């Protein structure tokens, strides 16, 4: 159980993929203009990352490792992700048209969201935050889910700030991306504060 607690807090706060590690910056800056769309994107990403961590773990341990094809990891994983995104898109179109319409635009974008690939690779190589120890199937999937929640959190927070910035009287040269980048920098400083949590968690363990 403790492992899961470490993963939960570690992936969302301490090693947040966007705020502490620079993954997924493009969608982070691109779709953070409105809270609604940020939330939609976050949901779609969560769905895909969770599934992708599950499948890539299976691919790695049951196909690539037994056949000694680890060097094909990048190709195999990105193909899994691209196919998965396509499948999710088609499935949603049939099963839940309303959700499909809400997420529609963002679904194809997920293929090129580097959080998805980074999570999948870290799960099987470094074992995410677990001191180099690789994770099992369940923990990997959970790890992916938490990483995605962390991504969503960062995205929604920035979107909230940017919505307020739109209404306030900003200097002209700060409008748009420069302002968003500096806000993101300030948020990242705040997230650095969570770094100390890790030691506390280890003490509990």
């Amino acid at each position: 159980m403790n492992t899961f607690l470490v993963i939960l807090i570690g992936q969302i706060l301490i090693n947040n993929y966007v705020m502490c590690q620079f993954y997924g910056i493009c969608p982070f800056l691109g779709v953070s203009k409105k809270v609604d769309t940020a939330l939609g994107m976050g949901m779609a990403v969560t769905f895909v990352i969770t599934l992708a961590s599950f499948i890539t773990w299976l691919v790695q341990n049951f196909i690539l490792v037994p056949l000694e094809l680890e060097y094909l990891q990048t190709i195999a994983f990105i193909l899994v992700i691209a196919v998965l995104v396509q499948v999710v898109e088609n499935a949603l179109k049939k099963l839940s048209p309303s959700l499909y319409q809400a997420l529609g635009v963002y679904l194809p974008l997920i293929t090129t969201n580097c959080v998805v690939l980074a999570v999948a690779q870290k799960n099987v190589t470094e074992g995410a935050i677990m001191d180099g120890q690789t994770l099992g199937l369940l923990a990997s999937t959970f790890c992916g889910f938490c990483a995605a929640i962390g991504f969503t959190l960062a995205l929604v927070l920035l979107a909230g700030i940017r919505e307020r910035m739109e209404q306030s009287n900003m200097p002209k040269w700060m409008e748009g991306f420069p302002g968003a980048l500096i806000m993101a920098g300030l948020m990242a400083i705040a997230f650095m504060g969570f770094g100390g949590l890790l030691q506390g968690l280890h003490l509990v363990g």
Partner: protein
Amino acid sequence: MADRKNTVTRTFLNGLITENPTFTLMLGMCPTLGVTTAASNGIGMGLATTFVLVCSNLFISLLRKIIPDKVRIPAYIVIIASFVTMVDLFMKAYLPDLSKSLGSYIPLIVVNCIIFARAESFAAKNGPVQSLADGLGMGLGFTASITLLSIVRELFGSGTIFGAQIMPESYQPMDIMNKVPGGFITLGLMMILVNAIKKIIGKRRAARKEALA
């Protein structure tokens, strides 16, 4: 022939300056921010991306009439991922230090949106020569901007440029420049600068046009 050469040059310069992927299109932000703590990392990442971009642009442009429209995204991904794997293995074998410091960002070139965007919006519609020029221009534009960013970050974060001491010994390195917040803030400030320069150039051009008219 001269005309054709002209458009090739223009495509090249378009990528390098006018539509600079980092400062104008805001593409490929993850490696831009992730690896730019040292100038050598910036150059290495830029050149690796340029190689992949040039090769994938060329191949996608050659295959553009064969690839069916419906499966084009998986097809592009396979082409791009093959070149990325080549670069990854090459760097692991010949440049192990650089490979280690770039870490997981090398395999992640696959999902660099610059490469994808150029494949989709340029290579899929233009001939191989044009696509090659576009790939080279965009790649070098990317290299130039991330090298610039990494020089600034290395200078303030460690007091060095390319590992050579620049700041006086008494300089206290700003550790935050090497961390995530430093990356965001430096890029934001540089973008303000670039926008200001663009505005000045635009104004000058307008003034010159007026003077001519």
